[in-house]
């Protein structure tokens, strides 16, 4: 089969981008979507054109590097998979497929389909951890954790940090990502001592990075390759409220007091 690819081309972060259309050579339906791009790129190279830049690495849906908007949907037509786990057999012979980068102000385009998602790291660096030094841990079985809590923590911890949730959201909100991180640690006993400090710091950092607000339309969860549930946003909002009462308001008051 053959398809046409309508691809976003942008030579650099500050350059103007545009769509260009390429006809693919004959494809095997069992090829992955990224393997199709490899083949097209090799052809472009031989023709003396610049290949299409796209982010990828593990090609098995776990590293979170690949980040294509395929026919308007982050990670393409199927639920619960990343771009790299999308296969050519999902498209029709002769179809024109539109490919764009994840679009959001906090994810500026680096080139073509590659965006800069380091904003997530900056959010993580203010609280996405348990403060435990190497070597300071008690025996692993000293704190039993109910299987239910542990399984739910794992549901959140599966997040691969790809940013599809942001790309899908009309407000470019990062709430699903941040709530998955906050939810994972907040469900475990090890995460309790820093639970409220964490949520406050990470939500503030998220706002500072320019991510928008959540209006709970659920588009994020619909495209999430790991099916992170919207419930984690609810959990985070509850924790955020408690945190505001517990320390946020207190600290703000103290600050204002000192300033006055």
């Amino acid at each position, binding site marked *: 089969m053959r398809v046409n690819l309508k691809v976003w081309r942008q*030579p650099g972060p500050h350059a103007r981008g545009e769509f260009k259309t390429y006809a693919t050579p004959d494809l095997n339906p069992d090829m992955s979507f990224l393997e199709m791009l490899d083949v097209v790129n090799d052809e472009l190279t031989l023709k003396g054109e*610049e*290949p299409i830049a796209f982010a990828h690495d593990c090609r098995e849906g776990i590293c979170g*590097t690949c980040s294509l908007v395929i026919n308007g949907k982050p990670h393409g037509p199927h639920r619960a998979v990343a771009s790299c786990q999308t296969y050519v057999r999902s498209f029709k012979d002769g179809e024109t497929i539109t490919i764009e980068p994840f679009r959001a102000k906090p994810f500026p385009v680096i080139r073509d389909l590659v965006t800069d998602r380091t904003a*997530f790291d900056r959010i993580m660096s203010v609280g996405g951890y*348990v403060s435990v030094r*190497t070597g300071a841990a008690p025996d692993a079985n000293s704190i*039993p954790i109910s299987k239910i809590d542990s399984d739910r923590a794992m549901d959140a*911890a599966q997040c691969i940090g790809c940013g599809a949730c942001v790309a899908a959201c009309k407000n470019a909100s990062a709430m699903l990502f941040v709530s998955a991180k906050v939810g*994972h640690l907040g469900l475990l006993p090890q995460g309790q001592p820093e639970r409220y400090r964490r949520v406050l710091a990470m939500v503030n950092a998220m706002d500072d990075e320019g991510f928008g607000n959540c209006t709970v339309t659920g588009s994020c969860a619909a495209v999430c390759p790991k099916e992170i549930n919207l419930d984690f946003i609810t959990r985070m909002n509850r924790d955020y409220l408690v945190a505001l009462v517990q320390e946020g308001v207190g600290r703000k008051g103290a600050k204002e007091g000192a300033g006055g």
Partner: protein
Amino acid sequence: MKLESKIPAGPLEQKWTKHLGSIRLVNPANKRKYEIIVVGAGLAGASAAASLAELGYKVKCVIYHDTGRRAHSVAAQGGINAAKNYQNDGDSVHRLFYDTIKGGDYRAREANVHRLAEVSVKIIDQCVAQGVPFAREYGGLLANRSFGGAQVSRTFYARGQTGQQLLLGAYSALIRMVGAGSVEMLAHEEMMDVVVINGQARGIICRNLLSGQVTRHSADAVVLATGGYGNVFNLSTYGRLSNCTAIWRAYKRGACFANPCFTQIHPTCIPVSGDYQSKLTLMSESLRNDGRIWVPKKGADAKRRPGDIAEEDRDYYLERMYPAYGNLAPRDISSRAAKKVCDEGRGVGESGLGVYLDFSDSIRRLGESAVRERYGNLFDIYREITNEDAYKAPMRIFPAVHYTMGGLWVDYNLMSSIPGLFVLGEANFSDHGANRLGASALMQGLADGYFVIPYTIGDYIAGIKPGSRPSTDAPEFVAAEAQVTGTVQRLLSVKGRQPVSHFHKRLGKILWDRCGMARNARGLEQGLREIPALREEFWANVNVPGDGGTLNQSLESAHRVADFLELGELLCRDALSRDESCGCHFREEHVDAEGECDRNDDDYAYVAAWEYAGEGKAPILNKEPLVYESAKMVKRNYK
């Protein structure tokens, strides 16, 4: 070169404890005066960078990804071993040590392996404290499963995503130190060279992948945690970006490369479907806990539907050949057995290069939902790739390149033959000998990063005067930078007629045929002629479009493939010089009466540490003898 392994004296069980008590320490107030560069942020790199920063050192962490969460440790599925004996099934530090030594076919360094088994228990504690959501039983305690090469259940796991969860744990420790200002992350930077001044590693040269800018970084010590080199075969279970550039450039600066031909071929991967293929996907070894591997007894049945083949016409060949371990025989043995039955014409699938991994017995015994709970995500991956439902028909699997036991030579302190250059995780050669057991890669990466390097690096740093870091204007830095810029220009200016991938595919094919699951002198000699010819062709005919001043993925990959084209030759050379069979290294000339490896301890009980001798010259083979004080070198037996 004289290789000093620096194995401490004393009984095996006490070496590490005694060593810890006797190595030099660095005054806490002085630590911040030292700068350490850690290259890579997979399990070994992230855990090392975080732990060193916690101790007070200034740390720079260099990664080619955008974030540390992407390193290929993330893809490890099945689990991590530790001698906790939570199952009360007779596990102990000694047993984990012994299984690992035996699994590696007596080609690993005994003292390192024992240390690995000792610290394994602390790794699990550390990860749980970070919030790694390991699988648990209803009582709230940690669950375990079994892996190949062991008769106890010592593998801890987080669904089929253990590597991801451990990496996120190590990443969280690292990002905490980034937030605290103790680690400077250099993202999108590829290490292109090690700078050696007066015989010591004193810095690195990086190339920014977004801007093309080449920069110099000086340091008091350099730690490489850059992973394995399995992508030299092109098709493998590695991430596409995994490469050998950092360790290869270090080799060319004087770090010995040990046992390069020890490459692990994993028995359970999804078979190749076409020549466009860019990677192979692993189906976790944990599946062998409940799946049974078989092929038809008669080649004539190979093309029939599996469900139409009667029970008595099936050959559960691992259970038949290795009754004691059955489907959980070690990886090298299981892979070779799969090759053997396929060579006999009994392989299944369109290509005939496949065997069945069948869950129907387990589904009958445990119910589909229990199987789904244990392996659901793996069955999902299988369906995405093959469009087949493994709950209804058996999976088809075939061996694929998965890991490299070889790597840069290191001493007991994980220091390479360049003083000040340390190597951790898969990038070093240390602990797995000629075959790695399942669930031991994660264990070694984290052992090296959390519990070995933070101590052993101090012993080296204590000998360096604080504030003696060289200026990046030193002639060695200038020369190394010029060399990197020169290579970039050279690659861009060939303007030949073939894309980089063309050469990578051909190199992979040569190595798979000549230096894969079975090797012989004739094939290896052929490989040694083919690879230099291909390399010459690459430099005459490669086409790298674009320029060096923006994100240029063709250029990135051209650098990596150029290094693979050199490394591939060393693999064949090493495989040819090791004229015995051991573990993964199966020389067809050395097979015993039962078709197993015929090891030769009299002549080959050594680590082959290759030393670079200069462009166009044959490398020098240095031998570190393997002296076993505790384990006895006996024939591996899994029957």
